[in-house]
């Protein structure tokens, strides 16, 4: 291991060291100062993000005996994960105080989760991918149940844990089968094996299918989605925000790499399945979201639907498609962080007021928060001049380019359905009068304000002048070739 390798590992090391340090500091920090732990986490994420510069344009190399692949693709995703982590820490800062769950472990777990996500994006070996998923999952299981006095939070955590364990077990079984079929778990070796005459064993194909189930669970593809609504609803809203964006992006990062880089020869076999999964996911997510009365649950189903849209880019299986997935995940992150930021601010003490009725009249009472939420929802619906439109445009163009016209049509029709439930929130905020015993939400805490403000600017920026980020996403995805 050379110094160079250490430089390339720096983001990981910083996250782990900072996480452990937070754990150690926790017992020595008086309760009123625990808010500072969030700042340490944000600082660690920022330093880690800076240290990513050693990875950028490092010419796709593997380190640690092929365990990690360092390329622009992994750097792109790690940067995204660090942003997600920092933003989540920011969102949680005052929220945890309000909900009396302000503890240092929370931020340490966020950092560990981020390290797990980074491993998923840069892993070069199925075993390490599995480890990344586990590190991420265990951290999120705990985070979901962080409000331990709240029965919903407990339910959320337990459900996530039980179903998640199943999914990981299936994933592990898939890895075992692939090992059986190829004799290796290393990405590059698997690919080389498969390139040989008769290299693709049936076990490998089945193993890949099981792998797909595991990832389907992580990114919430139908029919592996059933945990999402309950888990998202029960978890503290700040954690939901993190879960909606982080694990999903990480799951797609790993899935896309495995599909494009490890099993390019299997796309023929599996693309029809992915095609069906994309349609099922979009349709079910959108149709069921229409029926929700809780905004949090509605956003949970919307998160399922968006996994379907992203899968459209995966199905396209082209440069455009991969670039579109990367770009969409960026847009998706900010849309959801803004939406959940406002939701957690509107949820009031106790984190209970997340129903549509609670939103009546908020357009007048909290004009800026309501406007930010409206923008996030309009963007989620894919209306032009927002990042959401550009993202969908990119995804569907990838599908059309590859001749998946049907998929694109079903995708856009799904967008019409989504307009219905996203705009219903606008109706509640701007048209409906609040009920008699409605309480006003307290003013937005400054960290939430900051995140929502930045998010709004980024959503608009991505919609009006997306050139740079489009190019960046396209360029980063080229590393997969």
């Amino acid at each position, binding site marked *: 291991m050379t110094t160079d390798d250490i430089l390339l590992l720096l983001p990981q090391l910083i996250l782990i060291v900072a996480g452990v340090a937070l754990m150690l500091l926790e017992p020595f920090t008086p309760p009123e100062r625990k808010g500072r732990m969030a700042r340490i986490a944000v600082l660690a994420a920022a330093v880690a993000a800076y240290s990513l510069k050693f990875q950028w344009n490092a010419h796709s190399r593997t380190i640690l005996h092929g365990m990690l692949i360092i390329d622009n693709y992994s750097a792109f995703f790690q940067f995204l994960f660090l942003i997600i982590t920092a933003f989540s820490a920011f969102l949680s800062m005052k929220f945890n105080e309000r909900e009396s769950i302000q503890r240092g472990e929370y931020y340490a777990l966020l950092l560990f989760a981020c390290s797990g996500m980074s491993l998923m994006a840069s892993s070069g070996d199925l075993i390490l991918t599995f480890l990344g998923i586990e590190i991420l999952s265990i951290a999120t299981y705990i985070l979901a149940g962080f409000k331990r006095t709240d029965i919903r939070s407990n339910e959320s955590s337990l459900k996530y844990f039980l179903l998640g364990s199943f999914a990981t077990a299936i994933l592990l079984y898939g890895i075992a089968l692939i090992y059986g079929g190829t004799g290796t778990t290393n990405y590059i070796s698997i690919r080389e094996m498969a390139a040989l005459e008769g290299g693709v064993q049936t076990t490998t194909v089945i193993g890949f299918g099981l792998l797909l189930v595991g990832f389907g669970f992580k990114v919430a593809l139908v029919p592996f989605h059933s945990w999402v609504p309950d888990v998202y609803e029960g978890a503290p809203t700040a954690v939901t925000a993190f879960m909606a964006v982080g694990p999903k992006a990480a799951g797609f990062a790993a899935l896309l790499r495995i599909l494009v880089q490890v099993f390019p020869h299997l796309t023929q076999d599996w693309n029809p399945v992915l095609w069906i999964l994309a349609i099922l996911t979009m349709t079910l997510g959108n149709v069921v979201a229409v029926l929700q009365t809780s905004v949090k649950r509605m956003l949970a189903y919307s998160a399922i639907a968006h996994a379907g849209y992203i899968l459209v880019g995966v199905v396209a299986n082209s440069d455009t498609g991969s670039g579109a997935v990367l770009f969409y995940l960026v847009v998706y992150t900010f849309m959801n962080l803004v939406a959940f930021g406002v939701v957690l601010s509107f949820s009031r003490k106790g984190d209970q007021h997340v129903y549509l009725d609670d939103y009546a009249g908020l357009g007048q009472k909290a004009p800026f928060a309501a406007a930010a939420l409206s923008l996030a929802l309009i963007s989620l619906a894919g209306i032009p001049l927002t990042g959401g439109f550009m993202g969908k445009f990119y995804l569907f*163009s990838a599908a*059309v380019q590859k001749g998946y016209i049907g998929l694109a049509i079903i995708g856009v029709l799904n967008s019409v359905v989504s307009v*219905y439930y996203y705009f219903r929130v606008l109706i509640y905020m701007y048209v409906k009068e609040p009920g008699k015993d409605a309480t006003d939400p307290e003013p937005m805490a400054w960290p939430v304000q900051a995140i929502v403000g930045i998010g709004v600017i980024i959503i608009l920026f991505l919609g009006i002048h997306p050139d740079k980020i489009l190019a960046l996403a396209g360029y980063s995805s080229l590393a997969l070739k």
Partner: protein
Amino acid sequence: MDVPYILSIVTYLPALAALVILFLPNRSEKGIKSFAFIASLITFILSLHLVFHFDATRGQMQFIESVPWIMAATFHIDHHLGIDGISLFLVILTTFLIPLAILCSWKSITYRIKPYMMCLLVLETGMVGVFCALDLVLFYVFWEVMLIPMYFLIGIWGGERRVYAAVKFILYTMAGSLLMLVAILYLFFANGGTSFDLVQITQRLSSGAIRLSGLHEFWLFMAFLIAFAIKVPMFPFHTWLPDAHVEAPTAGSVILAGVLLKMGTYGLLRFCLPLFPAAAISAAPYISILAIIGIIYGALVAMVQPDLKKLVAYSSVSHMGLVVLGIFAFTTQGLQGSTVQMLNHGLSTGALFLLVGMIYERRHSRMISDFGGLAHVNPVLASVFLVVTLSSIGLPGLNGFVGEILVLAGSFARNKICGSLAALSMVLGAIYMLWMYQRVFLGKLTNPANASLPDIGLREKALLFPIILMMLWIGVYSAPFLQRMEPSLRLVQQRIEDARGAEETYRVTNNKITP
């Protein structure tokens, strides 16, 4: 004098004004209203520049400006604007109606003035943008962006069932336009993934550089057609219109009828015909039948409406059917008539909604049965209403006549049955409009609640005067309008004729091969 970027200025000035309004203090309602009015008036005056400097001898795009917008990944999207004889007057109609819409809301909108004015101004940017955009994606962006302010206009300031109407409006329109988006993407890749430029794609389609199979052309045509047919609205896609019209505030109805519906017919002229002429020719009989059903159905339903606003709304279905019929006659007269009729309908239906709004403001009712003999108490209102009614039913000397007669002549030349059936629209139109007029204004003053309604004031006169003036102008001397439209329309017609010719040659050669 040539003003650079004049189209951009006219397009974005209102949005800029809306942005300024955002930062005006909430308290000064009058200031906000005046600012919005002045901004829209300035936009109108600037847009007149387009008329004076328009070269009437050329059918191509003018005032062209093109700046790269998104040039990354696989995309090449330009901010490409330009107008020709078809869009020129629609732009002017838009900038003309917005100040009137603001003026008519002066008193009727009593709450949330600031967002209301912002919505109107952003809407103006979207509408002007739709008529100017020459890049398919840019067009789509304006087309969609415009929905949001309209959605809020209906949803927040509308009547009883406003939420239902607003949701219906946006769902219908989105469903159509998103299919169009897929078609746009398909065209882009058929164009070698080089550009979304409408002019370029049209050229390459007509020169044969892009070849579409008959089936593909048909489906692309359908994708565009559905988007526009919903907007027009053509029978059977019209059901959103009465709801949206009835629930929208007066200004919303004026803009909806005056401009938004024109986007549908404009789209047919600008996209469906030049891009997919062969498909347009083969679909023309069916579309004409739908148009005639729309004309007669709209008129019959209008006849039995008890609600004034609903009556006007259904009359729109009938009138817009006529416009579609004229377009798909593919004759010079038909196309010209349709384009003029778009203007006329914008003026006369816009004015009708304004007048109905004024009556509603006074009496808080729109039911025809609540009125009778209004001419005794409101003589000025009654006479203006009469002029507008006559314009709407196509009385010679007023604007409606010019458009209707051209459309009828054009479609008669194409198909005698079509032409004759369409002529029914004039008869039926006269029946339901005059009958309504008689029940509302003539006869004895039966309802005592109407006895003390004030006649129209200065603001309302100022509002109606320009419209009446335009009606007379187009009615008496329509040459300046027709002249400017003609070259552009001839290009569209040429494109259709070429496609027809190509088809016939194809058929002839085929026949030779297989005698």
